[in-house]
Each structure stands twice: as C-alpha cells, then as structure tokens.
C-alpha cells in the first residue's frame, strides 16, 4: 500500500505491506534504527515514538495507520534539540548503560514533562513504568527526569 506521512518533519512516501508495523517500517525502510524493538508485543516500551503528539508503541501500530500522520523518532527529537536538556541530565546522571531502552525512555519522559512539569518522583516512576530497563535499576533515570523537571520549572516565567 502507498502511504504518505511526515517523519521528523520530512515528507515520506512509501510502499508498505499492510502487515508491516510502524517500528519495522521506521527501522527497515527508513533506516531510523534509533527506534528499538525489544518485545514486539507492546510491553517493553523500547519502540516508543510520537505520532501526532501522542506517544505510541510502534510495534503495536501498523505503518499504514500512520498514513497522513506526523511521526517523531529519537533522531528527530535529538536533532531539533527538544530533549537536549533531558539528554544532558541522562548523561550527567549516567541514566543509561547499554542504551537500548534509552530512546523509548526519553520519549516517555519528554511526554510526561510536556504534560506535567511539576512531576514528582512518584509521577515519574508511574509514567515510565511501561518502559523496561534491565541495566540501571531505574533510580538514575528517575533522578535525571526529576532534575530536568526542576530545571524546566525554574526556567518558566
């Protein structure tokens, strides 16, 4: 099927099989390999991307469902600088080890911080509880998101 969509602000026209999911489409056809595949059944959160402003599990959405949509991946968020402060906090706090969950974590964390900049530690733990990380034990991630929340709050007028 022919689909047309925006990916990280660029127009993409592509031919896809109806069964292809969005994660595979991004990775295999667009070579945007920052979107990772961990479980392929919507549990681990590694494939989290943003579609029309909402975070979704790219393994649970078909590529054809993204027709006409605007998709943002970690590559887009990095290049636009939107999550630069969050990434800096992750770096300072060593909030990643193998890094495989990190793109999805950043997506989910940014989603929370855009909805609720006053997020508490509990809010952060709750919001990220659909993103599996085997390396860190989560505390460093929670710390980094919390530090970013405080920082952003301070920057607000």
């Amino acid at each position, binding site marked *: 099927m022919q689909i047309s969509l925006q990916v990280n602000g660029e127009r993409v026209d592509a031919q896809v099989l109806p069964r292809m999911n969005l994660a595979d489409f991004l990775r295999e056809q667009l070579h945007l390999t920052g979107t990772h595949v961990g479980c392929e059944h919507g549990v681990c959160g590694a494939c989290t991307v943003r579609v029309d402003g909402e975070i979704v599990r790219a393994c649970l959405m078909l590529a054809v469902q993204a027709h006409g949509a605007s998709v943002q991946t970690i590559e887009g968020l990095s290049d636009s600088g939107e999550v630069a402060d969050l990434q800096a906090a992750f770096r300072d706090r060593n909030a990643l080890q193998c890094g*495989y969950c990190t793109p999805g974590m950043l997506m989910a964390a940014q989603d929370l911080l855009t909805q609720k900049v006053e997020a508490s530690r509990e809010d952060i733990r709750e919001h990220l509880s659909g993103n599996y990380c085997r390396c860190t034990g989560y505390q460093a991630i929670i710390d980094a998101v919390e530090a970013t929340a405080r920082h952003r709050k301070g920057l607000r007028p």
Partner: protein
Amino acid sequence: MTGAQKPDGLSALDRPNSYIGKTVPRPNLERLMQGRGQYVSDMELPRMAHVVFLRSPHAHARIVGIGADAAKQMPGVIAIVAGNELATVITPWVGVLSHLKGLKSAPQHAIAIDRVCWQGEAVAAIVATSRALAEDAAEAVRVDYEALEAVTDMRTALEPQTPIIHQALGDNLAFERIHDAGAVDQAFADADEVVEADFIFGRHTGVTLEPRAVVADWNAAEERLTIYQGTQAPHMVQNIAALHLGLEERQVRVVCKDVGGSFGIKVHIYADEMATYALSKMLRRPVKFVADRVESFNTDIHARDHRCKGRIGVKRDGAITAFEIDDLTGIGPYSMYPRTSAIEANQVVNFVGGPYVTKSYRARARVVFQNKNVMCQYRAVGHPIACSVTEGLVDLAAMKIGMDPVEIRRRNLIADDAYPCGSPSGLRFEKLSHHASLAKLMQMMDYDRLRAEQAELRKQNIHRGIGIASFIEVTNPSAAFYGVGGAKISSQDGVAVRLDAQGSVICQTSITEQGQGSESLTAQIVGSVLGVPMGRVRVILGDTDNTPYGGGTWASRGAGIGGEAALQAAKVLRKNILDVAAAILQSTSAEFDIVDGIVVNSSDGTPRIELKELARIVYFRPDTLPPGIQPELMATRHYVPREYPFAFTNGVQASWLEVDTDTGFIKLLKHWVVEDCGTIINPQLVDEQIRGGVVQGLGAALFEKCIYDERGQLTNANMADYLVPMSGEMPDIDVGHVVSPTTESELGAKGAGEAGTAGAAAAVANAVNDALQPFGAVITEIPLTPQLVLTALGKI
C-alpha cells in the same frame, strides 16, 4: 580513594588532574541517547539474508521427518536446512571442562538431528530475503514428531523409573561435588540448636532488552568469516567458531559494537548462533539472526533452578558451629558450551558460609539433566543461591536463639584484621571488610530507628520487615576459572596505547562494553597516567582484528584486569614519550612530567613542549632528532592476576519493606548496599552497577520465574506473563563503600558487577520473614509471590 599506596611516593594514579576516583560522564553516551548506536540488530549488509529457526514444540521427541518442499517454493526463500545437512559444515560440541571432575554431557548439534531435547530447540533453519518471508515459509515446513517422555522434575531425574535423556551417559547426573571439612558431625553435636530449611529458587533468565543477535558474513574469496555479534567475549567466539567450522582463528574476525544488555546471557555460544555462522559459510553470503522475544525466553540460558536443603548449628551465645547444604539443580538437556552448566552449582558449594568464621562445612551439589531449556551462568553466578541459603540460615538461627540478626552477624563474620585467610570451602581471601561494611550499613540505614519504627507500626497492624544479607563476590578471575579446565577462554587482557600525530591517544583494549563503562574506565586510567585530557583518549574495543587478545567483560573482570593492563601500557608509553621529550629538550626524562597534554618541568610546571609538537617531530621530522633515537609511541601490556585465583570482594545489603497480610503483596520501601570493590575508578559507574544488579536480584526475589508445566512446556515465554521489575515497583537504593584495594595490582581495583545481584534476594527474603515474625510464618522460596505469602500465613 586512590590506588595501592606505593612506599616510594606518588603512584602513576596519584597525579594532579587524575581521573581515578572521579565521576566523569562516559564518552559513548551521546550516540546511544541520540539513537545513533550500532547494535547488531540494526545491521544490514549487501546480499544479507535472514534466518528464522523452526523450533520444537515438544520438550522431548524423535524427529520422524521434515517436509520442506512446499516451503522451499515460497517467495523469498533461499534455503531450508535441517540438522544433518548443516552438520556437514559445522561439528558438534560437548560442554565439559576437565577441572569439573566427572562432569558429563552429550554432543550437541547446531540444529537437532533425529531428536529434540527441549521445547525451543531448533529443528530447521529457514533462510530468506527478509525475516517476515522466512517466518511465512517456516509455517509451511512440516515436521513429524514422535513424542517421548519428558524429564521435567529435577527431584525425580535420578530415580530408576525416570527415562535417561542421553542413553550413552548412563544416567541423568551431569555433575556432583561433595565437600566435607572441619569435623561437621562434631560441630553440629556441639551446637545448642540446629535449624534446617529447604530453599527453593525460581528458574529465571536475563531478559536482555536487545535479544541475542548475530550477523555472520563468510567471504568465500577471502576465505574469512566476519561475525558481528553482541557478545561479551569476542576472542572466545572467534576460537569456538573457527574450531567447529574447520577454520583457523586468523580466518575469523569477531566485531562487537553496541550491545543491548548482556548480564552473562551473551557470554555463551548458542546453537542457533553456531548455525548462523555455518549457514553463512554454506550459502556464501551474510546471514542475520535476531531472536524474537519468545525465542529469547525459550533459548537464552536460564539460571538458578535450585532446591537446596540447608542446615546450621548455633550456640546460645550466637556462635555458628557448622553449615551443611544439599543442593540440587536441573540444567536442561545439555551442559552449555564452552563454559559448562556445572559452574553455578560449584559456586554455590564454594560460597555458602563464605563470610563466616566457622570452618565446619559439608556440602553436596548435584546437577541433573532435564528436558527444559539449558541453564548456565547468569550475572552473579551461584552467588544469590549461596547468599540466600547462608543468610536465610543465619537469620533462622538468630530467630531460634532470640538474637538480633545484626548481632549474630557481628559475632560470626570474619574479623577485618584476620586476612589473608581461607573460607570454609577453601577459598582464599586477600582482604575483606565485613565488619566495616556492616557498621557503615547500620549507620546509613539508621538501624535502631528503623527497628523502633517497625515496632510502632506493628501496633497499628502494619507489618514491615528489615532484612540483612552479608555476601562475598568473586571477581578478577584468573585461569583457575576456565583455562585450567581446557577452555580457550582467556583470563588475561591486553591494552595497546599510542600517541597519534596530533598528540591524541588511541587505546585498543580486549575488554568489551555492554554499558558497564569499560570505555570510560579505560580512558580515565590512560588519561590519568599519561597526563592527557580524557576527551583526547579514544578507546577501541570489541574487534578481534583490532584489539589485543583477551577475555572480554564478564565475571567482574573488566576494571580489575583490563584496567591494570591499561595502566601498565600507559606507563610504558609515558616513559617513551618522556624519553623523546628529553632527547628533544636535551635533558633527562626525570626532569619532565606530562600535564594536560603538555610536557612540563616537573619542578615548576613550566610548559616545555606540547604532545602535539612532540608527535609532529617524531612522525614527520625524525631527521631532526639526535642520532640513535628510535621513538616508540605505541606500547602494549597484558595483565592477569597470578597470586590469587580470584579477587574476592564483600559487602552487605539491607531491605526495608512492607507486607500486606491481607493481599500478600510486598512493597519495597528502601534498599541499602555497602560494598568493597577496592580502588574505585568512577564512583558513579560503580554505584550504578550496584543499583542495576540489585534490581536484577529484586526481580528474582519478587517476580521472575520461567514457569514450566509437567510436560516441559514453558508457559510464560513473553514479557506480559513473565514479570520483570519496572520503575513503579522499585525502591530507591542507597550505596556506600568501604575501600580495600587488592595489592596484587598497582591499580588495586576489584570487580563490582555481581555484588548487587548477589545479596538482594536474600535481603528481601529475610525482611519478609522479619515482617511475618508475629505470625510465626517463614518462607524460604523465591519469587515471593502474593500466593506464597498468603499460603505461609494460612490464608489460602
């Protein structure tokens, strides 16, 4: 927080601007955060094909026939290969090592021939132009099986009426070890109380977020195989692949870039990986295999399926007189290759009673075959079993004589000034710090206040518990681990450092990176010794063509062994640089130091020549150097510990939790760890190793279990049904340190990768039993599910 103090003054690490003991960000984080890492699952090569393995739905069955004619005609299919055909390319293996006396196993093939021995064993490889097309074709492959009786319960595996899985082996006993020392019967007779318990552990697995992945690329023109694999031990993979494909090691290159989690899961060589290497050679093109999540659960090694009967003797004054264990573990149908599946049970025997003074210890460990997925070494091999049994018994003994759990430990832990000394099982300890660690823990957790809070809350029917677990951890393994048994797994590591033509440093190391911080610690050490900013040190790892030969990263060896090699190599390069500087500046090298990339006068710090300028002269104008000088701006050193077979470390953990006695749910409130890994290179990285390790142990304590039914079917092989720790349920973890460097190396670093996992489950189990004390309920099984708690409380 410095390295071993040298009597002759400053060590190479004690220099101004040293990075040792400092928290600095890892150099490789940016690419991972921006989605610009290079994991094997991201890789694509020209003409690359994808392999899917058709796997047995039976735990034990004879393969009657495989019909692939229809499947071979399907779109995109390149080849469908069964076990006997693949066996013409790759030879089978047997997972035994000679130092594990009596260990036996049967030949294992890359793809099953005639018989499958666990649910998930591959029976055919389907190679196609895409994974999806290969999966389509796999559905059209018909396999006729004749089901055989499956051996699933390890408790009956050795009984005469149980079928023998491998007839040629005579029985289902893979390995047995017996240890008996220190007049155990007399020691138990001397005890005032003897307490016994059966400790049961849930079989669980690593659940790396990136599944196992490999791209094998046989270049028929070069007669060379390049293997891109997320592995912890590239040189081991090189050796094994060459051995079984009939190649020499020089014909195999193993490249390992970013790895999405390892934890010991990726330190082994799996049958499907061997099959992928062989398929590439057979089909003369690159072949990619990436396990899906169901395959990961069915084929990534499992671990910790143990039932261990434990016994402890104690006097009324708290003195422990003896330990005794009888451990039984089921490892699946084969001993894993090449590290074997006997190490875990062996470590359990080694470590039980390890922190304590008593030398009276009897142990039996039996390792049996069964028709389930293979078990092998996973993070903190054997440690959590030994720690849970030991610390569970110590708490039960304390309960029996009415002593505080901290007090009984104080009375029995080996004194901090008693080293060097040995353990009940004959391990050698260079320097441990159990008492200092326990004292620090008490202070961090404010033990007395917590006890008071616990008592207060009990009046309100709120049941909180405190659990303590002391532990020992094996790190920096020498050849005693594998090499002496005949495994071609290097225990030494090598590092090469060189100055480039602009005065930056390139460093090649044989240790590997899966997120622990190998790259960072290497750059920190090299930068510190050379006097070069870390940002100008580039570290290359994970490539057998481009690094010295070495073991890789496993068993907490990267910092202690690879770090020391980096230190020694950098010292040589530093000397070589200063010799050149002395020649250029017509002085002696003793007059100079290197600070911030500049050769300076050691007396007053006056800059004399930048490394950039020195490198320019050496590489482009050597004609201007004095006659006879042949500068050597590259140095290589290797290191392996020789004095102690292992550098033991120690620590202690505590858990504070609440048990809901109506629902059986356990809420983790706080966790503390004090550990002693010797010299700390990067405090933040050490703390994060500990925290991550703790949470892996907490997963085992509360959630994780591979649930098999009586037919050997894994019933929860997905992430929705196999529960892992998520952020919502995990507590904050405070980490503290005691620092006892090993004097065997100049760096003084020991490992820290196992510590968290080693003691976490024991601390939680002890805390639950502490909380349930008013009910007289004791649980010695993990995972501590609500069902288990309510059963112990007599509510269901």
